[in-house]
């Protein structure tokens, strides 16, 4: 009885509070729907070690039922493993039915809310659920159906089920018709999302079909599927009391001592001894966790917080890598120069985290020198496109003195110029400010870690800018000599009424004189080139 009440309230809760999970505006609705579908496709491919190839179609079908909206069709097709028929209603129509919930892995999806919310939004605005075609390797024919959320019971319901021939071994196609508004450019634009996704997924081949635009393909630049590190158990120092108690529910009938050792990282025999020294009675540790009362949990929790434990391992974070980032950033457009940096995984707020940064100057945006640089934020390789001012990444960018690296920067603000700055934060436990995962919480330690990454990337970038300055300097010097030298000499000859022979001699002398400076500038340029060589 109680479980029924809980599940039905979950779906009902989210259906009434879709704004909390990314559906707070018409623009966001389109982006969130697309994002959830792509996240699922990528996670599924990586899980099964398949190089992902995804195709996206976005179409305007006419005016939407809500004011100022269009009826938008979004379809995402992947070459992933496909979904077993039995799982299809759970994946698309049931909240919190994820295989990923609280696992401590760097997957894009974490809770199993997103795609069901998209189905709900489609159902609410266009009265149809998610249209799914899926096929696993073992299926002879593909399953084609519509999934709807049974909001009262938090269950996925399959409608219009049929089996069809499909010309692929495995894969999934999901299609939503929703009310929304299309925004292509700008920070919240679809193109920003698509480019960002390509950037941090060098192994992805992406095709997209946007309204009034030709089919675009971004080809993969790496055949290496990122190794998804094994999940790690949570570290007891990162949990709140409620989470600590809830964590025990995952383990059922198991002794408290075994639960502590098995359910948490960095808890071992030594920790148990320390707990006993701290006053935890052996009989409490011998009790089954489901038999512990609240007082015992609280005591256990408080005591373990006081015991010094090793910081959590960093092996659970996933890295894109400098090489792959360097290749990937060139897919964003014609790039003048770039700098990429992967920090070693580290611990921030007792959670393993890895920060990676890519900065590129775009050739075709060379004129936009007085607008802020484009910032693309990523959390677990998913672009974050809203509410940037409160984000840890933006806070860190603003604290760096970019002027030192040759960029213009208004005081305590983001730098300016035709640059793209991509910052990726990967962690099995990213702390977001909200359920729609738009903003990374700006803790002091995390901001400092991002800041360090930015500084290192800035230093690398400065070498390019310095080289460019030297090249400009040389060009300017040569231009100056060629332009002004003859005019100066001619003026002198006229005022002094001197001969043409003297003119020639003076011109030669001037060229020798100024040519020396040009040669010095040339030598400096070579020096700058040398410094840059290891980076290119």
């Amino acid at each position: 009885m109680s479980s029924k009440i809980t599940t039905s309230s979950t779906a009902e809760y989210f259906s009434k509070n879709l704004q909390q999970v990314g559906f707070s505006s018409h623009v966001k609705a389109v982006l969130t729907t697309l994002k959830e579908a792509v996240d699922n496709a990528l996670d599924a491919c990586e899980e099964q070690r398949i190089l992902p190839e995804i195709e996206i179609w976005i179409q305007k079908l006419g005016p939407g039922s809500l004011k100022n909206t269009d009826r938008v069709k979004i379809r995402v097709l992947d070459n992933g493993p496909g979904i077993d028929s039995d799982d299809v209603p759970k994946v698309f129509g049931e909240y919190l039915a994820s295989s990923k919930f609280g696992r401590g892995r760097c997957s894009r999806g974490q809770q199993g809310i997103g795609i069901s919310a998209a189905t709900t939004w489609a159902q609410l605005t266009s009265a149809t659920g998610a249209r799914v075609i899926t096929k696993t390797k073992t299926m002879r024919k593909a399953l084609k159906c519509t999934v709807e959320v049974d909001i009262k019971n938090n269950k996925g319901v399959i409608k219009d089920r049929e089996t069809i021939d499909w010309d692929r071994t495995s894969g999934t196609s999901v299609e939503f018709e929703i009310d929304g508004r299309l925004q292509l450019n700008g920070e919240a634009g679809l193109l920003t999302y698509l480019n960002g996704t390509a950037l941090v997924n060098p192994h992805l081949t992406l095709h997209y079909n946007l309204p009034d635009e030709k089919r675009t393909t971004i080809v993969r630049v790496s055949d290496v599927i990122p190794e998804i590190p094994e999940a790690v158990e949570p570290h007891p120092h990162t949990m709140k009391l409620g989470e600590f108690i809830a964590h025990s529910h995952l383990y059922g009938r198991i002794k408290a001592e075994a639960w502590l050792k098995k359910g948490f990282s960095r808890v071992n025999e030594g920790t148990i001894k320390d707990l006993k020294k701290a006053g935890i009675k052996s009989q409490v540790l011998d009790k089954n966790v489901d038999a512990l009362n609240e007082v015992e949990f609280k005591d256990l929790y408080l005591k373990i917080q006081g015991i010094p434990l090793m910081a959590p391992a960093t092996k659970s974070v996933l890295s894109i890598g400098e090489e792959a980032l360097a290749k990937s950033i060139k897919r964003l457009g014609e790039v003048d120069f770039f700098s990429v940096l992967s920090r070693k995984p580290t611990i921030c707020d007792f959670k393993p985290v890895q920060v990676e940064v890519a900065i590129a100057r775009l050739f075709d945006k060379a004129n936009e020198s007085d607008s802020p640089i484009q910032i693309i934020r990523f959390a677990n390789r998913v672009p974050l496109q809203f509410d940037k001012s409160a984000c840890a990444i933006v806070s860190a960018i603003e604290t760096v003195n970019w002027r030192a690296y040759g960029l213009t920067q208004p005081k305590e603000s983001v730098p300016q110029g035709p640059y793209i700055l991509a910052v990726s934060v990967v962690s099995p436990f990213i702390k977001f400010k909200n359920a729609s995962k738009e903003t990374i919480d700006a803790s002091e330690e995390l901001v400092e870690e991002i800041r360090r990454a930015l500084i290192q990337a800035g230093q690398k970038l400065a070498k390019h800018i310095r080289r460019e300055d030297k090249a400009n300097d040389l060009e300017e010097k040569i231009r100056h000599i060629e332009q002004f030298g003859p005019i100066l000499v001619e003026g002198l000859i006229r005022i002094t009424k001197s001969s043409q022979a003297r003119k020639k001699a003076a011109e030669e002398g001037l060229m020798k004189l100024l040519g020396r400076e040009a040669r010095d500038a040339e030598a400096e340029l070579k020096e700058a080139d040398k410094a840059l060589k290891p980076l290119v």
Partner: protein
Amino acid sequence: MSKTHTSGVSSRTQQDLPTLSKEICLRLLSDLERAKRPILYATKCSLDNAVYNHKVGYLTPGEKKVATELNVSSVKKMSRAIFLLEVLLRNVDTGGVNTKRELYYIAKGEVKHNSRLKPLDFEDQIESDDSIDFICEMLECYREDLNCFANDRGGQTYSQQLIVTETLPDGEKAVVELGKLGTSPFQPKNRPQKFKLSSKKPIDFCLIVESEGTANTLVANGFTKRNSCILLGAQGVPSNAVRAWCKTIQDQLQVPMYFFGDLDAYTLQNIFRTLKAGSAASLIRNQDYSAPDVKFLGVLPEDIAKYDLPDYAVKESDAQEVRALKKASDALKNDPFFQDKRNKGLAQIMNWLLKNKRRCEQQSFFSVNPKDPQMPEKIIMEKIRKQIFV
């Protein structure tokens, strides 16, 4: 006057300039022929290079020089300077005159008609002004010597006795009798040093009034009828023409010179000091642009009590007044003019101003007897008679 100061820059005449320019250009040319880097030296015109000797009477340059070396960065600046020098020398040769603004357009016209000169083109007048200033530094002359005149303000002069004779470029002589001008003033322009001054009757003194309005009032009330004098309005900080005009009056007529203006730090430091001893920015030309004999007639601090003049406190909220006080305190520490013991009286007034933070305007003399329009004149004449000045 020490030899150092009479020789060198300030004794340079307009006739020397074409020769000097040619010399400098020849030196540049021969350095270039030998692939040697030419360096041009100019006098450093700033207070830290200013010297004051009361026997000389005005601020003169010290030993500091500014060197400009020809290199890739300065080749544009030098090319522009040589280009404009040619234009200016042409003016000196033909007797043509121009303002800086006109020269800017002349330069643009030259570039328009000769595409080879395109790289020299001035985008704004400030660029051509800089080039003219650089030429003056290079030749150590002032722009008036190169017939580049400013539209000088101030210096409106009244006298019943003064006669000004000016030789015009075509050799004709213009004679102006100021006594025949009625209440209209004579205003010196361009190069007043070239005027020849004489008088119908002996002139007793020359009075320079800070406010042109007050100068006009004094004349309208009959000051120049009752007194054999020259009366002129400075109109604030004296322009080059006013400074050169005062110097010409002093040298040619050898009459006592008095300045009547406000009692405040700005007047004393910016207006009176510039009139008497020149400025740091014009070190190389103060000889022709200062009248060292001029005395400060008032308003003096003691006048406030003596005539019960309305004065008021320096407004702490007025940035300009506060800045003037700060400058005055700096001047007492760094300005060789105020540090010279012969100018102790002026330094004492500055100290009084800094200490009391009060100021009193020249027009306050009109408050002494509001019903008597001649009262300010009476006070001024009493001061002259009793030699109450600094």
